[in-house]
């Protein structure tokens, strides 16, 4: 059976349903308003990061380690140089003869939480200082990388053409230089200068640390510069940059106000990835005896010293090894989390 045809309606006729044109009631208006507030990119990324449980755990671990590393030395009863010759190679929570006598007299003695080392120094505080050095190296190298990398990358990307070509060739060459070898070379070269320096901080840190910072400043930023440049190259073509330029904004202003804020995600990801490799380099050099100068401990030099009594006192290796493992693992996982949160396209 055929359905009856609807009556022919002239498209120009004015047969309109007047119900469609009634003003909306308050209730309907309220429905139209978006219930969700507008979310900026930053907020969105941070929310995604917050949902990543692994990354949040890592942040908590890093903050905890940082808190211990920077506060503990102020309240801890031992210093990293204080020696007790009767307390060599104590197991964790063991007391030396001297300390046992004190306890017998009723004086309370703070326990050696991680035991003591070959020279009778409290090991916990040495591991804490070593951790502090590692964190400082990581943070400083990230800072250097961010500052130099952004400036270099954005200039190269913004001006393009010949400037870009020359600047990127320089980056290519620096990229190919073996950085660890150069750190070692430099630390050998400036050993004498540093050890006779009048600046207390520099002599305390030692030639290795100073050269690590110098080489990081000279070489480590190239990865960041490349990424920032790539980002800038695509942002440069956006209309809002053209608009900004047409009303006479200077290149510095355009880079600062329009380009760098749009590169934030890349910058955060690259910086977070750079931290573990910097920490690795420092501990590696300290292990070889070219990092911090004695008696300042570093996780690398502690592990190196632990080799002497490795078979009988393996805990001397386990503590610094665990510490560096936890730090690097947390930064690695946090870096992955940041990458997922800030750049969903890069997710692997």
């Amino acid at each position, binding site marked *: 059976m055929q359905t009856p045809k609807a009556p022919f309606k002239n498209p120009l006729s004015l047969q309109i349903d007047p119900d469609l044109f009634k003003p909306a009631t308050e209730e309907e208006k309220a429905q139209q308003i978006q219930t969700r507030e507008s979310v900026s990119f930053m907020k969105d990324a941070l929310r995604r990061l917050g949902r990543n449980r692994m990354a949040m755990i890592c942040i908590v671990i890093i903050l905890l380690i940082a808190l211990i590393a920077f506060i503990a030395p102020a309240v801890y009863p031992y210093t990293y140089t204080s020696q007790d010759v009767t307390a060599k190679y104590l197991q964790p929570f063991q007391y030396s003869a001297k300390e046992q006598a004190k306890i017998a007299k009723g004086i309370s003695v703070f326990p050696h939480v991680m035991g003591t080392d070959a020279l009778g120094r409290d090991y916990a505080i040495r591991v804490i200082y070593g951790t502090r050095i590692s964190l400082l190296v990581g943070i400083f190298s990230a800072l250097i990388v961010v500052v130099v990398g952004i400036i270099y990358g954005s200039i190269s990307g913004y001006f393009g053409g010949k400037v870009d070509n020359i600047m990127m060739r320089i980056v*290519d*060459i620096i990229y*190919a*230089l*073996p950085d*660890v*070898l*150069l750190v*070692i*070379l*430099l630390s*050998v*070269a400036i050993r*004498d*200068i540093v050890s006779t320096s009048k600046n207390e901080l520099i002599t305390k840190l030692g030639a290795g640390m100073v050269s690590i910072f110098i080489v990081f400043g000279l070489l480590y930023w190239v990865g960041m510069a490349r990424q920032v440049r790539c980002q800038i190259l695509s942002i440069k073509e956006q209309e809002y940059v053209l608009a900004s330029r047409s009303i006479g904004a200077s290149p510095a202003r355009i880079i600062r106000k329009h380009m760098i804020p749009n590169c934030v995600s890349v910058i955060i990801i690259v910086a977070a990835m750079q931290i*573990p490799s910097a920490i*690795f380099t420092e*501990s*590696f050099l300290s*292990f*070889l*005896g*070219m990092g911090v100068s004695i008696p300042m401990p570093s996780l*690398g030099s502690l*592990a*190196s010293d*632990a*080799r002497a009594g*490795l*078979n009988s006192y*393996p805990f001397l*290796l386990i503590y610094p*090894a665990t510490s*560096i*493992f936890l730090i*690097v*693992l947390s930064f*690695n*996982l946090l870096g992955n989390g940041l990458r997922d949160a800030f750049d969903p396209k890069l997710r*692997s």
Partner: protein
Amino acid sequence: MNSKLLVYMFKRFGMALLTIFLVIAITFLVMHAIPASPFSSEKAKSDAVIKALEIKYGFDKPLGVQFLNYLWGVVHFDFGLSTAWVGFTVSQLIINAFAYSASIGFSAAIIAILLGVLFGCLSALNRGKWVDKVIQVVTTALVSMPSFVVATLLLLLFSYRLGWLPSLGTQPGGMVLPVLSLSLYPMAYITRLQRSSMLDVLGADYIRTARAKGVKSNVVIYKHALKNALSPVITYAGPMMAYILTGSMVVENIFSVPGLGRLFTNSMLRTDYMMIMGVTIVLAVMIILMNFLSDVLYKVMDPRIDLA
């Protein structure tokens, strides 16, 4: 092999040569910027002796002449005389040590690549299953451990506690632990690279096409997917070389292997400048050449890549 590729290779080779030249120049300048003469740190010598030594080692000439002489020497694999090991030339010592480092490094690289690719494929093909999870956890842990921690832990476990393997690298079977400790980090890294690139490739359209037209699953995996997923691993060859060479400094010290890394750290402790310069340059040249090779191979393997 087209002309575009040849041009690219020439360009890239030129860059590598330029970088090598820069490394030599930097090494030379840094070592000559040191205020102390290489002979002053030894036992007290009279001025006349130091002068004679400087003439013998050619340190009395102007800097530019010294540099050109040094460069000429380097081109002929002549790095001068060692000041700490008297009577030896730097190149002799390097050649003697090279055999040890090469055998350790080469075995470590092969193991890392083979096992890395294998585990990466296993992990990608079993995505989400327990195999994948175990591999992910283990590799994440391994890339977070510095070489010295891995090496000392292996030494403690296999040599001191279990007594299965000798602690000295020169004893029979002593190369196992150094090779193992050098290969773990690059292996874990390659596994992760291989896993993510394999997953990328397996999701590609041409894999679906191949499956749709009835190609056997094994052929799809090994011929189509694996071949295309290998290119990120190739780009890692350069950094892996750098890791193995610098890692050998730690590992050779821990296991007392008389290789290049040990030679390097020893010459640093004895402030033998000629030796430090020589070994730095040799190591740097190896790293740079490896980078060059992996770059070129990457382009040869994957013709889609734009030769910029």
